[in-house]
Structures are given as C-alpha cells and as structure tokens.
C-alpha cells in the first residue's frame, strides 16, 4: 500500500491556561479515510486539543497555543470555528447544538439554506429570499442516505430520540460539500448499543469515502473495533500511538491511567481494620440518586469500620452522586444503614446528626462561606448540629455563640493543617484553593465524624496541599478510627490511600478492586468493558513491541508512520 498523505498534522501542540499547562508537545497525523481514536482520561487534554484545532474563542482569549497545525501540508491558523468549517473540518459536539423546534432538514442547513430567487430579492437583497424547501429536503435525504441511518428529514428535533439527534449532528457535518475531516467528541455516550452499532458502521462508510475521522470516546471497545490508529493522551502529553488492530481494551486502558507504579507506599499506612471482622460501619443497598450529570442508578456496597474506602470512575458516571445522595444534598432512594441502623434519606441534617460528615467536591458553592472568616467556616456545622462553641445563657433559654472558642479552635486547625492565612478571622474567599480545601477538611473534623465522605479532596489544589490533605485524612483515620470514603477521579490518589476501591460506571458499581490490582483492571472497569473476556497477555506483549517500534520510528516523518499502520 502506498504512503497515504496526511491531511492534518499536529506539530508540537501545547497550551497553558492561566499558568497551568494542560497540553504539551502533542503531535500526530490524520490521513484521508483514516479513523483515528483519541483516548485519555478526563482532563487528559482531548477537548482542549480539539478546541485548538477549531480555534475556539476561549483559546485566543487565554493566550493562544504553541506548535503548529498543518492542513493539507500548509500551516494554518484559523481565526475562529467558521474558518475551520470553511476549510472542511466538521465537529460533532458532546452537547447537542441543535434547535429543538426545527426539523432535521432545517437544522442541517441552518444558515446555508438553498434559496429561491425572485424579483423581491433583487430589490431588497438576499436576506428576504424564500427557502427552497424541496431542494433542502432532497439534499438532506441524500446526506442521510450517505450516513445510512434511519432519519426522517421532516421530524422536529425535540421529538427525536437522543440517538437521532446525534445522527442529525453528524449528517449536518457531512452534508457540507467540502468536508474532509470530522471530529466526533463522545458520539456514542448517549446512544444505545444498537444505535451505536449503526453509527459505527456508518462512520466506516464515511471513512471509505475518504473522509478522515477523529473519534474521541471513553468506550474503548468501540475504539478498538472502529479505529485504524489510536492516540493516547495522558496529563496533556501524548503517551503512545499505535494501530488499533492488535491492541486490546486492557492495554489502552492501562496506557490511559498510567504505568504500573510501585505500591510500597500503601503498605505502611495500613494500620486500621486489618483482618478484623467487624460489622460494616456503612452499608448502602440499591441506592439511586438524582443528581444532574452524576446520576446514580443502582449502587450497593458496604464499608467496614475504620476503613478508608475509595470510589473512582470517570466524570459523569455517577461517583459524585453517591455521597451527595447519602448526605441529603440530592434526591435519593434506597437503603443506607449506619452501623446496621437504616437511615432516612433526603435531609442533610439526618446524616450529620448521626455522625456523618461530608467534604464536598464543590468547595465554592457547597463547602464554604466565602464571605465569612475561617473560624466561622470551620465551626459552623459543628455549632449548628452538635451545639459546640455555644454557651447557654439565661438558664439555657438562649444559645450564645462563643466567638473566643471558635477563634481558638480555628487557630488550632490553622496550625495543624498549615493553612496559610493572616489569622482565623481572614475571609475564606481570599484563601488559595488548597487552603480553602484545608478549611473544608477542618470543618468536617470539627464534627468529629464517625463516617466521613471526602469528595475530590485534591481537585484544583497544588502538590504541597495535596500531600497535606491526604496525610491528614490518613492520620485522622488511624488516630480516631474514623471510617473514610474518598471519592476521586484520580486513581493514583485513591490507590495510595485506600485499600479497596470501587469503580463506578454508568451509575452502577462496576467492580471493587484491592489497591494492589493492576491499573489495567481499573481501566477496564472505568471504561465499562468488564466483559471483554480474559486478560490478553500476548496482545499486551504485542503492544509493547509496537510501541518500541514506534520509538524507533520517531525520527521518520509521522506521515510515514501513518502509512505504515495502513499496511
């Protein structure tokens, strides 16, 4: 097979957001008719990369990007998404950008409708031209046939099942005459299995017609099935690229989450609950939670007394819904029992009174009183729920707030957690993210909880604060025997603190693994590909060889590497 010319080449793409590096030196090529799978965990930089390709305004507003984009061998700098569209790059977004009250055809041809000519338009210009609906319907039917999906050109978008909305978006992109490359961001996330099948086969058809496709998905099985070539991003860097044929879900998953790391660190911190046969401190059965974007469908697990239990999973799969539902912050149902006693769900006060506490993932909105001082923030919950920091006056008729006790308590935690501030009265809104998170932890500790939920404890905080936060949790667990449930997107962090880690996928617990389990197994659970069959050592071996080969090819032109993959 001849060397296929790359239609799009990315060369050393990098991007910083406000000093945070989110992408560095990403390079790869896409050839005409090639389907490229772009995979990576949340935050690995996939979406940013695509935004750079489309020259979204937010990229310019935050200082542009590094590296260069070659489109048909010429370096391009699109001024905005419309330039990219003009050049022949189409994008199907994660969120539907369709108008609900318009029909399929109207949505497909929005702003580029076929128009009738008439005398009036000669006088008043093209703005008042009438739409040539007949022609539009014909054209959209042709595009729909090209994709090979059962879409009705006249149906209103709001009446469609989600799958058809997704199809409409794709049809809109391919109906452009010039389109050479289509980017699909998680196109199958909202589809049922059969719809996804239809979509995948129609994508193959498109590729056969010479259209290049960048396919972004968390469903690794689909990536392996559909794509010719896979690019794995991790922490803003390209870690590997290799042909999809011959690779397995498992190998891709382990590349996504990172290489196997030494697990010595965990061993020394296991001081709690080792081997003890105690009744579960917390048992959750058939929990459902209606939290927007984090729906929990059917979750059952139990946590032993004194254990640090981890809940992981990709964003949007429902892991955050679990603590929010149990703590009464989102509508929930099912059975939650604390030390064997069932607890009523739906009111935030009940779990607090029973000795549970929650460090929310949403620091600014749920976790803190930004306009108040550190002392208020730390002591408020304990004061309201457990009547701490109060002095009864007039024979207990009134509960007087003891500002002095609050001040001293806050001072103690400022020292313990090394909160950088000017004093306990400083407004929490003026603290840095890491210090705010420490305040949130201190707030939970002030309640002296029996069971503590900590949601995304290290999100958006610097390395130093991260370390203190995790160490404090471990210390608190071993000193007071507090049962801790940590919910985090960062698998490494869970593996360094927890002994058992549950992985949530599509609102259900996909599996519970010991922290010593290989990363690839976590990856498989996170991608919801549990039933992939037995582990495939030989394929992994294959991949190693492949990546070694890629290493040696680094000096060749990437286009040549792409060509090789086609062989």
């Amino acid at each position, binding site marked *: 097979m001849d060397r296929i010319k790359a239609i799009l080449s990315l060369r050393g793409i990098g991007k910083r957001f406000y000093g945070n590096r989110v992408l560095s030196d990403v390079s790869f090529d896409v050839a005409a008719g090639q389907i490229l799978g772009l995979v990576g965990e949340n935050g690995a930089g996939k979406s940013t990369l695509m935004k750079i390709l489309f020259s979204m305004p937010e990229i310019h507003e935050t200082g542009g990007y590094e590296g260069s984009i070659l489109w048909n061998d010429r370096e391009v700098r699109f001024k905005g998404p419309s330039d990219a569209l003009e050049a022949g790059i189409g994008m199907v977004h994660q969120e539907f950008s369709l108008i609900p009250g318009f029909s399929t055809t109207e949505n497909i041809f929005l702003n580029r409708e076929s128009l009738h000519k008439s005398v009036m338009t000669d006088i008043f210009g093209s703005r008042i031209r009438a739409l040539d609906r007949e022609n539009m319907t014909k054209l959209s039917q042709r595009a729909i046939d090209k994709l090979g999906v059962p879409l009705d050109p006249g149906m209103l978008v709001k009446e469609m099942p989600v799958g058809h909305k997704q199809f409409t978006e794709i049809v809109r992109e391919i109906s452009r005459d010039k389109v050479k490359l289509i980017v699909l961001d998680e196109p199958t996330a909202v589809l049922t299995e059969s719809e996804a099948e239809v979509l995948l086969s129609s994508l193959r058809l498109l590729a056969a017609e010479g259209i290049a496709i960048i396919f972004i998905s968390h469903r690794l099985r689909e990536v392996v099935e559909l794509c010719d070539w896979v690019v794995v991003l991790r922490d803003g860097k390209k870690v590997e690229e290799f042909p999809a044929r011959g690779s397995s879900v498992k190998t891709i998953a382990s590349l996504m989450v990172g290489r196997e790391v030494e697990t010595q660190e965990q061993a020394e911190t296991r001081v709690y609950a080792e081997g003890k046969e105690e009744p579960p401190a917390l048992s959750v059965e058939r929990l459902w939670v209606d939290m927007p974007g984090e729906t929990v469908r059917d979750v059952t697990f139990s946590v032993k007394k004194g254990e640090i239990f981890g809940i992981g999973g990709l964003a949007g799969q429902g892991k955050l819904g679990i603590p929010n539902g149990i703590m009464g*912050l989102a509508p929930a149902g099912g059975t939650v029992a604390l030390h064997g006693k069932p607890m009523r769900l739906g009111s*935030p*006060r009940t779990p*607090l009174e029973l000795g549970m506490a929650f460090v929310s993932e949403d620091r600014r*909105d749920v976790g*803190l009183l930004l306009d108040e001082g550190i002392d208020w923030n730390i002591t408020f*919950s304990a004061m*309201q729920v457990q009547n701490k920091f109060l002095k009864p006056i007039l024979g207990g008729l009134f509960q007087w707030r003891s500002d002095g006790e609050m001040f001293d308590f806050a001072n103690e935690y400022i020292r313990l957690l090394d909160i950088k501030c000017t004093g306990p009265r400083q407004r929490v809104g003026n603290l840095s993210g890491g210090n705010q998170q420490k305040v949130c932890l201190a707030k939970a500790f002030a309640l002296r909880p029996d069971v503590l939920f900590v949601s995304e404890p290290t999100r958006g905080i610097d390395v130093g604060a991260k370390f203190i936060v995790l160490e404090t949790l471990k210390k608190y667990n071993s000193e007071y025997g507090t049962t801790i449930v940590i919910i985090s997107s960062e698998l490494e962090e869970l593996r360094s603190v927890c002994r058992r880690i549950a992985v949530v996928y599509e609102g259900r617990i996909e599996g519970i693994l010991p922290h010593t389990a290989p990363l690839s197994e976590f990856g498989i659970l996170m991608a919801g590909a549990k039933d992939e069959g037995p582990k495939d050592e030989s394929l992994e071996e294959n991949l190693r060889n492949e990546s070694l080969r890629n290493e040696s090819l680094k000096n060749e032109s990437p286009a040549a590497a792409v060509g090789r993959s086609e062989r």
Partner: protein
Amino acid sequence: MGHIKRFAADFGLPRMIIAVYLLGLFLMAPMTGVSFSGALSDVFTRIGMNGILVLALVPMIQSGCGLNFGLSLGVIAGLLGATVSIEMGYVGVWGFVFAILASQAFGAIFGFGYGVLLNRVKGGEMMIATYVGFSSVMIMSIAWLALPFKSPVMIWGYGGEGLRTTISVEGFWRHILNDFLSFQLAGHKFPTGAILFFLLVSLVIWAFFHLKIGTAMTAVGSNPIYARASGIDINKMRIISVVISTMLGAMGIIVYQQSFGFIQLYDGPLYMAFPAVAAILIGGAGVNKASLTNVFLGVVLYQGILTMTPLIFNAVLKLDMSDVIRIIVSNGMILYALTRKTKVLK
C-alpha cells in the same frame, strides 16, 4: 499616607464625602444664624424617629432576602396596632405599650405570609417585595374605610365611618418616648427616650445575631447551599428573618408616630421603605450583609443631611424652600444609595 488610603478604602470615599459635607453643614450653622443646638436636637429627634425602621432591614439582608422594599407591610402592621390601641381608648404609657404589642401580633402574622411568599420567589425577592409593599398599601386603603372603627378621634367627621388620613396621637401617646428622661440642651429638647429605645432594640438585634439561630441566619444569607449542607432549614430561617423584619417595621412606625405626633394612614406607608433602604446603603450595607455599624452610620448620615441641608440653605438663601430641598436631597441620596449596593463596607 498608606494608612489614610487604607482607611479611605475601608470607609469608602463617597461615605467620607457625605460625612465631611454633614460636618460642614454643622460648622456653617452658627455663621448662617441657625441655632447649633437646635439643629443638633432636630437631628437626634429624626434619628430616634427613623432608627428602628432602618434596623428593621437588617434581619432580611442577613438571611439573604435582600433589601426589604416591602417594609410598608410592617408599617401597616404598626398602623393597625396604633389604631386598635386608640380605638380601645388606652392612653399614656399603656396606650403606647398596647399599640406596640398589638402591632407585633399583626407584624408576626403578616410577616409569616410575606416570608412564605418570598420563599417561593428566591432570586427575585426585592422585586416581589416592592410589589408586596405597594399592593398591601392599596388593599389597606380600602380596609381603612371598611374596618369597623368607632373612636370619634379617628373616623371621618362627616360620614361617621372610615378612618381619617391623618390621626393625631395628641392626648394618647404623643412624645411618650421623646419626653422620657429628656433634658434641655441649650434651650432645645434632647429626645433621650427615643434614642435609648433605639439603642435598646439595636442591642436586642445585636444579641440575636450572636445566638445560634442568628448565626445560622447569617450563614443562610452568606451561602444558602452551605447552610443547607450543614443541616439548616433555609426556608425556616428566611421566614423567621422576614417575620422579625416586619415586626421591627411595625414597632418602628409607632416610635415614628409618637415623635411625629400623627398616624398617617392610606398611602402614608408607601414612602417609608425607600428612605430606610437609602440610609442603610449609605451606611455601607450590601444586599446580603449588614451590620449595626451600617445602621448607625447610615441613620446619622442620612437623617443628618436631610435635616441640616434645608435648614442651612433656607438661612443662606433667605427663602423658604425647605420642602423642595428636602425632597431633592432625600431622593438624590436614595438614587445614589441604590446605585452603590455592590461593595460591603465596614
């Protein structure tokens, strides 16, 4: 220099200009022939009259319900209390005490309904509050005619039924607070009782916000989601704050009446909310944060300027334009105050 700058930033330049202007007016008083002590006495009388009405805004601001533009509802509760007290024929201290007690009962009932309503329109409280104020005044305009009051002091002389627009409290409890412990200040009366009463009520409110419940209320105003996550019943706290606000409004108008000497019915309550709101904003309060310092400073600055400006201008211009100037100044200050409701000052 840095010290002064920091102070200016903390105190706010506009507030400083207002304070300097007020000071200037006082200094000009002797030069223009206006009696200094008389002016001071006037200012204190007005502070005593209006203080509690401004204080009434604090609970709702603290609980996140915003500025109580529906203060008229509380004022109506106060009017009902006052008229019922006169109807019953109580005079003197007991008349005043009964008026306040009755007004508190009305205020609690009205405030509860008002609070329930405001809980249904979270985010649009101030707009709805304004309309609650307007519509309650209009409904009461009908009610004042229809309610079966009999006291000849209060009903229309000719028809024999329906209440008059203005009812004198002379002979009932006029100046009951102003005269309490009052003394002569260079020939002018100092309204000791009214000021003491204002300070007393302020003390109670200060104490309230140092209780567990007051702390919870502040947290609700600061961040309702945080409060909910800490097990606070947000709606309950908000209703309590609205009830307290309305009750204080009712008490405030009775204090106002005993000093003013008249009960103003019909559309009288319509114009009570804006000056109070303007005063607390000039005092440095924000839409969901207010302190007693804001109240004191606001009342002193607002009422001070409102009293002094016409006095001095009249004396300088030798024209009696006091009412025109008063209206220009008060509405100008309201306008200024409403445009600067963003930054909270100490």
